[in-house]
């Protein structure tokens, strides 16, 4: 069952250091007929700045509800696991739904995500079907605005 609600109810935050990967995610969201606003950031620190409205994102709109697509493997001082750990251990952010993105189905990486309280992950390259399935698993489908459901998903 596909439900519709007002556009903009959930903002999708894509966190991926690779510009190509985040562009592919953006396109696949569009192909899945998902019309929620999408924000792309390129590193763990920037993701935390966005979530906490500080730094370059200090003046982003307040009161956004977020869904985070988070790449596990990012270079730099704050990687995906660090971001997840921070989000899940901070009361204000621990209820934000997070879908982890992995570039391998490495059992160790996945186990680490599970330990940190994230049980939904997508293995890249992401396609629209995988994304819709992941949304379904975290129970967010009603919050995601889909203007033109694909026929295959209506049957599912």
């Amino acid at each position: 069952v596909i439900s519709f609600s007002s556009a903009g109810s959930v903002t999708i935050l894509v966190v991926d250091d690779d510009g190509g990967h985040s562009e592919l995610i953006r396109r696949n969201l569009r192909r899945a007929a998902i019309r929620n606003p999408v924000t792309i950031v390129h590193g763990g620190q920037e993701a935390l700045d966005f979530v906490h409205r500080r730094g370059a994102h200090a003046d982003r709109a307040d009161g956004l509800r977020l869904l985070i697509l988070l790449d596990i493997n990012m270079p730099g001082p704050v990687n995906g696991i660090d971001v997840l750990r921070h989000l899940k251990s901070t009361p204000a952010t621990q209820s934000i739904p997070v879908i982890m993105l992995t570039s391998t189905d490495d059992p160790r990486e996945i186990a680490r995500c599970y330990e940190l309280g994230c049980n939904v992950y997508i293995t890249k390259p992401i396609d629209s079907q995988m994304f819709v399935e992941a949304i379904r698993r975290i129970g967010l489908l009603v919050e995601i605005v889909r203007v033109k459901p694909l026929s295959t998903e209506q049957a599912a």
Partner: protein
Amino acid sequence: VAETLFSYDHDALLGQPLELLVPSGLRDEHEALRRGYSDAPSARPMGSGRDLAGVRQDGAEVPIEILLSPLETPDGPAVIAGIVDISGRKRSEAALHQAIEDLSIANLGLSRANATIRHKSEEVEAFVYIVSHDLRTPLINLQGFSRELQFGCAALRRAVDAIGMPEETLRGLHTILDEDIDGTLHYIRSSATKFERLITALLELSRTGQFTLHSETLDIPAIVAATLESLGQPIGEACADIEVGALPDATGDATAVGQIFGNLIENAVKYAQPGRTPRVEIGGEVAEGMVRYWVRDNGVGIPESARARLFQVFQRFHPNMAEGEGIGLASVRRLVERHGGTVWADSAPGVGTSFHFTLPAKPQEPA
């Protein structure tokens, strides 16, 4: 005899005190001990518990053993001293000690070399892991964006068809879309897929060397039964005849041993001789603290020339018979060797192949 041993002339010794033959520092003590012996003579080795030495005429000391026996003579009590030169034995003993010492030095070197090899192989594994992981990032773009182009191509085709162009122009455009673009994309995508399979295979192989093995007593019949169940589809498709014999218990990691049997059984079914019902026999027997298991098939066999490379990574000997990257047997060897076992095969091309591997039979002492 004493002359030879101590290299004196016979005459030079006659009438000399016995202490001439005793190392100079011990002469007084020897004289005292000799008097003590005369008071309570008995047949016994002299100076038991200490290394004795005699002095030759040239002053060199000779290691000796002396056996004393009292003797009654018409001239009164006397003592026979049987003296044996033990320098030969001493030299053998010294050589033995030297050999033992050399051996322990060699052992130390060997265990250092082993540690180095282990360290190197861990390094290589970590390297393989990182490289294959990092290679996936550009690969994902290659796969993702070539798919995007394919979507774009399909959309363009629909748009072109909708315009209603002259037949000839339309055919020309379709050639560009189908051959020039889609045909090209096909090659890019199939190469990317091949690339991905190789990377995945490398990652899997590096994992077989990295995960921790849990050692426990294994119910091998249950492991083989579960493995056969998970291979139900390929076995069913090949109409293979599987015969499971006695399987003694062993010690090892249940998951790893399941993977070993899984790889070998899957190969046995995959590489069947065309026109012959695949038959796979699985069995085992205890031998010298190890259990030897075998997976025997009546398949195509392994060409003689391939034997040396059989367990190497990325080797494929019948690439047209089945999908695969050539890491199955490399993983099997890795896992068997991590259990302290060995794996080998005998094969007759066109007749069949037997794979054998050993696992410890009893729980191993903790290292």
